């Protein structure tokens, strides 16, 4: 089992969700984050003091899938989150050792879905 973590643009969230649903991936956990990378920031001005903001709003999606689903998940995200401009984000794949469903106590692959 793997955890796929995707950092995407806020405005892509709807698309990405749709693409995942189309790929039969229905479970995910989402949170708002701020990211810093190649993308240029911007400046803000408060009564003449200029602040440079380089942490830009992003969305982080966390999806735990069985190994066979890693590829479709990644494909779905890449195709739906790509605008081609700097700042589209990253996907990280990490190993997961065990999964439990709290409601039933099930573990492993069954618990994922």
């Amino acid at each position: 089992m793997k955890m796929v973590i995707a950092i995407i643009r806020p405005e892509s969230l709807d698309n990405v969700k749709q693409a995942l649903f189309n790929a039969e991936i229905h479970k995910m956990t989402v949170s708002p984050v701020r990211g810093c990378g190649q993308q240029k920031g911007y400046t803000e001005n408060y009564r003449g003091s200029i602040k440079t903001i380089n942490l830009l709003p992003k969305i982080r999606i966390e999806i735990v899938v069985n190994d066979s689903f890693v590829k479709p998940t990644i494909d779905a995200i890449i195709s739906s989150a790509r605008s081609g401009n700097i700042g589209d984000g990253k996907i990280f794949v990490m190993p997961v050792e065990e999964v439990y469903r709290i409601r039933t106590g099930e573990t492993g692959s069954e618990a994922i879905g």
Partner: protein
Amino acid sequence: MKRKFSIGLLLFLFICMSFSFAAFATEKGTSLPDTFTAQSDEAKIAFRDAVGVTSAQSAGDTAFMFASTVLVFIMTPGLAFFYGGMVRRKNVLNTMMNSFVLMAVISIQWLFFGYSIAFGTGGPLFGVGQYLGFSGVGAAPSVYAGTVPHTLFALFQLMFAIITPALISGAFAERMKFSAFLLFSVLWATLVYDPIAHWVWGVDGWMSLLNPNAAFQALDFAGGTVVHISSGFAGLVLALMLGKRKEKSTAIPHNIPFVLLGAALLWFGWFGFNGGSALSSGGLAIHAFLTTNMAAAAATLSWMFVEWIKTGKPTVLGAATGAVVGLVAITPGAGFVTPVAAVIIGALVSPLCYFAVSYLKHKLGYDDALDAFGCHGVGGFFGAVMTGVFATTTVNPFGKDGLLYGNPEQFLIQLAAASITAAFSVVMTFLIMKAVGLVVKTRVAEKDEMQGMDITQHGEDAYPDFSSDQSIA
């Protein structure tokens, strides 16, 4: 269920509309000299002279009462923020709506029959129908306020009729079904508020200062009994009948700046509430303005002080609460007591209410979510009684002297008026709530309570994309 309710509503609207058209038809037929008004100066002067008030006096008094009325109006949105800031994020809209929607509901109720019950003549207990649909309520002054249009007096009183049931909603916040709340509020306004207003302020009310034949004449300058005791005790009954919130222990205010905004608007509006209760521009109105401000100030400080002693830190929520209970307590006496008495009343009410909300409530175990009873019931009762202690005819020759000015009887009268109002409100609220319970469920399902009132009652989220920079939808 939803279906049944919708049908009920449809019926209700239909009836209202028929009523409107009927009323309209009647109106059309008759000429309405009362509503006659003119834009030219001569016409205005002639008209007002005819009704026995000089035009210029009326212009000033009308301006004053207009300002007072809009000030009382803004108190209800103020209350929406005062209460709305104190609930959890997931319940803020429902809580605000419980105030906001009453601006609409009670306005219509008042126009068609509420005002008639409260301020029509008819008997010591309630008025009858001569003002149905505001017929006979026009530009000519009324018996209640001799220098301003009757309409203005009726609008001023409307604002009181709106905020009173809204105050109750603090008690049952975060768990009462919206449909049950609407039904309850209309019934309560009609069967509790309107009669009590008649008793205390009607020309023929049985405990009214204006009624020479009253059983006794209670002092209630701006609504200590009519507004605060009635609503506060109703809140207690509802809190008990509905039961505790499921997740009571984690309930803390989600937006204290909103609470402060609400408190500020309440304080601001209360100048119109108490000042305007003089019903004309002048010394008495300004005296009430003064006492109102001073009681609020003293109570703010004494609440802060109690907290500082008890917990080591004065809170902002506490200061705001103190201001409100100070305003509550001075309401019945604002036009009867001296400014120094106002300071004393304010300084004493906060410790009392603090005790009620921080100790008594937990001891007795009722879940008065936003302390409608602890603030308005307790503070209002205290204020009514203190009026019987501190009232003096040197401030207002049309009032009475209190205990400290050699008239212990008035003290007992105040105690009686406060107790009777409280008892009446308790019994009626209980009965109304039982009746409402026969028609709709009064409390939301547990899972709806968990999910929050905003989504389950209104299908809305107050701050849908607040925690991120886009809509997480």
